[in-house]
């Protein structure tokens, strides 16, 4: 079973040029993959397609062996619940505490409050944000907000973790903490896809490296069907 399968995917906005052009990619369960590329290369668009935030202009997108483009809205929501996302702009909800932000994915699936409390507490310690767990996002430092966003993405133990520039705003020590968190999650069976313009970060991971430039994967994934 492929976790993600993109077949000749393209994306353009309006009448503009293609942001992604004929991209094919396959991620198997347990893969850890870093996509590098300069700003504007299409990394975020690629991740938006995979997280079903936006539909492709053409091509075929399969998630967990389900044709994601043919799925109805309920089925798409079910696919999304299997994906954890670290957004480039974090998207923390300002009216909720760090604890409630982290707990959102669990609340959506109806996990009991006691279980939520246990999971959030454990993750907060692991990511070193336990002392700030009741603070609102605007009261957190950039590094703390980043860690809250990562905690929210991984708290439900997703089958696929998608992270867009996850170490962009953090110091070296925090970046290392997050890299270890992703590797740890990957070792537990989660497929991880990270997009970053930081080639140095990519080298920290012992994993597949792909490069996206001007909307094209210049290091084509050997597992993809072209």
């Amino acid at each position, binding site marked *: 079973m492929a976790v993600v399968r993109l077949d000749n995917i393209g994306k353009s906005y309006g009448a503009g040029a293609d942001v992604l052009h004929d991209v094919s990619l396959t991620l198997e369960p347990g893969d850890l993959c870093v996509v590098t590329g300069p700003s504007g290369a299409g990394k975020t668009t690629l991740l938006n397609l995979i997280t079903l935030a936006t539909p492709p202009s053409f091509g075929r997108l399969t998630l967990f062996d389900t044709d994601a483009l043919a799925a109805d809205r309920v089925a798409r929501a079910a696919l999304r619940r299997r994906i954890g996302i670290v957004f480039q702009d974090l998207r923390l909800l300002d009216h909720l505490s760090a604890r409630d932000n982290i707990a959102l994915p669990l*609340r959506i699936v*109806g996990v009991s409050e006691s279980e939520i409390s246990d999971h959030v507490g454990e993750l907060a310690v692991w990511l070193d944000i336990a002392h700030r767990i009741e603070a609102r996002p605007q009261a957190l430092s950039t590094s703390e907000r980043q860690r809250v966003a990562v905690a929210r993405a991984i708290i*439900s133990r997703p089958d696929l973790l998608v992270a867009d520039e996850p170490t962009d705003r953090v110091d070296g020590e925090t970046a290392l903490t997050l890299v270890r968190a992703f590797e740890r999650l990957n070792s537990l069976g989660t497929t991880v896809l990270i997009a970053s313009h930081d080639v140095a970060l990519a080298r920290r991971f012992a994993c597949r490296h792909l490069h996206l430039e001007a909307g094209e994967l210049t290091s084509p994934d050997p597992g993809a069907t072209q």
Partner: protein
Amino acid sequence: MSGQPSGAASLALPVGGDPTRPLLFWLFALIGYLAALCGLALVLLSGEMREWNRSLDNSLTLQIPAETSAARIETVLALLRQTAGIRGVRLLEPAETARLLEPWLGPAATLDTLPVPRLIDLQIDPGTGIDFADLRQKLSSIVPGAQLDDHRQWLGDFRGAAIRLASFMAVGIAAIALLAVVLTVSLTRTSLALHGETIELLQLIGAEDADVARLFQVDALRQGLLGGATGAAAALVTLIAVGRAVPLRVMTGGSGLADWRLWVVAIIAALAAGLVAMAAARITALRQLSLMP
């Protein structure tokens, strides 16, 4: 842990700063007020109609000219008692007639000096048809100038007017409900736009449309119920105030606020406001969400 959505309600929107909330409350307070007033008026009107029907539907009044002799009056009474369909005949005493005329002539009026007709109250059997043309002819032959007043004629006219008024009020309530739906749709769309980023996030982490719509429908239900209850309470207060200022029986409903029907109308108005708000918000939210990726 990627299980089924629970419809868990704790995905609270940042509604504290949402300006559509107080608008929704006041909108449904106004709508609840108008709808409850119309409903209360309908209840009072229907109660009054029943009372009038009960008291007048089976009665007639015969007026005998003042100068009519006692012998002729006795003849008339005998004729009436023998007429099929008349089950009660009672000649009103002059003192009773005086009491009936008191509101118009005043307590000091001396009826002895006025040509006040004698009145005969007739109770008729509604199941038996009476030939009124024949009866009037016979009465005129005994007492020229005798007038048989058939209340049912003008009571029918009054009924027609009351039914038209009730229909107008029912249309008014329907129009108010329609207005409530339109405004709720508009406010819900505004609220969806205000919380667009939050909604998009909830969807991206797996919330179903129904989960997100529930956030709006629950809030709309709360605002609709509170607003509707406030409006209905204000309508009851208005009824009391108007009842005191205009002490007509129809305004106070006879038993006033002890009349349980008035409370039922007020409760129904509040519940209907909540349900209309909830249904309109849910349908609007689901439609808008279906347009998102």
